[in-house]
């Protein structure tokens, strides 16, 4: 975990006192709302349907027990006892008062947290693989590069007033779990024949009202050139990105409008033009940052754990949980535990203060004090001994945190939707709840296999519906909520944008429609064929027929 140096602490504390002063000036009327709004947004404070909402940064999704316990404390003292983990690996509180916000930010600063870069037209919080530093398939931990990008981008004066917000995702694994192809910039690590590291630079991906898959502008950028090259991209965007129309201001529109070739040429020209010496990533600095993310001292353990195998053989529920919620760790005898925040009928991504404390405690006891937030709105204990899995599962079970559905039909991504969000056009959460109840039978979920269902409550697509195997978009049709269904999206290596299947549905008809889609897949799949592969082979037609055939 990155630890603040003196500069970081000073900087965050200064920001808290600046905000305290700004909020006071707003409350006494010295600042108008128009003057104050950009200031509060720079500190993650939005005004939503029922109250202010505070979006707290969890850079690259990494937490420790002190941080998570502090979030639990804030949830109880200043909110309503819970928080909502988001698709940006952040945490949102829904019931915040303006007059309490400076105190909350001060509390966060005590554990090296803040809400900077969670809003506004700046380079946002960097996101990454939730299994970073733990996954068996990883080339290298992407978080040092995430932190490097954070240090470079935080309040970068040149990039604080971009045409629009800007999101960077980093993956250090050949299996992309960070959705790098649907970010403004995606960075993907490769090794060459000589074992040297280089970064594939992808630009112009995004979701929202114009979903686009990113294009690769560099296949293998040497690590020390990374910041200089990112700067060249940002400059081209800052210069040519459209400021006349908010809906056309993201870099994806620029890349799309001028074409990938022209965009690449502009970046290369800018890159060649500028002196690189001042932004060269120094080996020493990278090593300094990397030291913070050094792997824990794993014990030398046998690959096979008798305790674990015995528990798995004896307890079917535990065995099911292991099947879906445990991932392969890089060190023998260890495992990655994925904690589902998607209980049957629950609110995706919500965790109570008590649940946060339970997870914080487990992390401290069993996972080298590390916790991760996934963009699927779940939590992760990245470094757990296989010997301890059964004990952990029992604790999770007692706190409604042991649902065996990671990557299955019940593991639904849903934005807050019209229940909380002032931008939403329809509710998302009740749709997620009713689908999760429809597929409540976990055996059936396991039988269906990997299935990603994502729901957004408006065209801005915080629920990532475009890249779901089954995507659901909530819209407003003459004052009534209705839902459009898309099929075949994916944010993984072979990323694709889902295709709209046909006319939308009323909310109460959505679970039945999803059921028909799933049944069509089950009836037509080949042995071992997952939903996405089956859809790609079959195309939309059989699913359309199932959904829209005359009743």
């Amino acid at each position, binding site marked *: 975990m990155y630890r603040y140096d003196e500069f970081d602490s000073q900087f965050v504390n200064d920001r808290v006192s600046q905000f305290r002063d700004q909020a006071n000036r*707003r*409350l*006494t*009327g010295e600042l108008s*709302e128009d003057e104050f709004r950009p200031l509060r947004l720079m500190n993650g404070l939005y*005004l*939503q*349907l*029922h*109250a*202010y909402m505070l979006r707290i940064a969890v850079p690259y999704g990494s937490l420790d027990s002190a941080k998570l316990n502090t979030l639990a404390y804030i949830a109880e003292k200043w909110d*309503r006892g819970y928080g909502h983990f988001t698709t940006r690996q952040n945490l949102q509180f*829904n*019931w*915040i*008062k*303006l*007059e309490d916000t400076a105190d909350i930010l001060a509390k966060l600063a005590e554990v090296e947290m803040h809400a900077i870069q969670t809003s506004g037209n700046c380079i946002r919080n960097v996101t990454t693989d939730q299994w970073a530093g733990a996954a068996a398939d990883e080339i290298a931990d992407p978080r040092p590069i995430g932190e490097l990008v954070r240090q470079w981008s935080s309040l970068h004066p040149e990039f604080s007033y971009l045409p629009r917000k800007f999101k960077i995702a980093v993956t250090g694994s050949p299996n992309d779990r960070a959705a790098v192809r649907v970010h403004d910039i995606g960075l993907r690590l490769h090794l060459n024949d000589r074992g040297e590291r280089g970064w594939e630079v992808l630009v112009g991906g995004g979701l929202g009202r114009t979903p686009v898959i990113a294009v690769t502008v560099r296949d293998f950028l040497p690590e020390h050139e990374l910041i200089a090259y990112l700067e060249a991209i940002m400059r081209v965007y800052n210069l040519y990105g459209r400021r006349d129309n908010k809906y056309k201001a993201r870099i994806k529109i620029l890349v799309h409008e001028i074409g990938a070739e022209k965009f690449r040429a502009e970046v290369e020209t800018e890159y060649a033009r500028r002196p690189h010496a001042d932004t060269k990533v120094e080996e020493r600095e990278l090593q300094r940052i990397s030291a913070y993310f050094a792997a824990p001292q794993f014990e030398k353990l046998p690959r096979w754990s008798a305790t674990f195998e015995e528990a798995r053989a004896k307890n079917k529920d535990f065995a099911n949980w292991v099947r879906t919620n445990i991932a392969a760790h890089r060190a023998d005898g260890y495992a990655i535990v994925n904690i589902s925040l998607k209980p049957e009928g629950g*609110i995706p991504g919500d965790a109570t203060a008590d649940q946060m404390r339970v997870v914080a405690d487990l992390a401290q006891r069993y996972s080298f004090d590390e916790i991760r937030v996934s963009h699927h709105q779940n939590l992760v204990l990245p470094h757990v001994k296989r010997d301890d899995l059964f004990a952990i599962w029992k604790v999770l079970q007692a706190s409604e945190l042991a649902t065996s559905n990671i990557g299955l039909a019940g593991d639904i991504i849903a934005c807050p939707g*019209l*229940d*909380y969000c002032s931008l939403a056009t329809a*509710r998302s*959460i*009740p*749709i997620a*709840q*009713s689908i999760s109840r429809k597929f409540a039978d976990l055996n059936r979920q396991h039988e269906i296999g990997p299935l990603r269902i994502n729901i957004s409550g408006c065209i801005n697509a915080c629920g990532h519906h475009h890249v779901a195997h089954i995507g659901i978009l909530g819209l407003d049709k003459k*004052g*009534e*909520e209705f839902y459009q269904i898309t099929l075949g999206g994916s944010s993984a290596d072979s990323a694709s944008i889902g295709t709209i299947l046909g006319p939308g549905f009323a*909310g*109460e008809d*959505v679970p039945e429609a999803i059921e028909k889609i799933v049944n069509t897949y089950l009836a037509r799949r080949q042995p071992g064929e997952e939903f996405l592969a089956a859809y790609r082979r079959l195309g939309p037609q059989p699913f359309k027929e199932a959904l829209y055939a005359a009743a």
Partner: protein
Amino acid sequence: MTTTATEKGKILTANRLRDGEVVFLTHSGEWSENIDGAVLATEPQAQAALEARGKGDERVNLVTGTYLFDAERRDGHVFASHIKERIRSLGPTVRVDLGKQAEGKGGHFAALQGV
């Protein structure tokens, strides 16, 4: 025996500045947390007057983000026309234990349950 007529019109709403609470402008010019306390303006002139009043209260930093929305009054209770305003006047439909609906300040219409 009188039948209660349904009155249609507009209500002025905002968020209270200090805590973000959803509030509605009342007949006496106060801000109520309960939609039933709201004044319903049926005529354009009255609606414009509400808006002016709201802008005034924004200037003195009581509330922020004032706007009018469609509603009707039946039997002394106010019903918001659009689902968004119904949710604002009650609280999240997925957490009926929270918000106005849980604090006895909800509107006189049922919370939406599920879908």
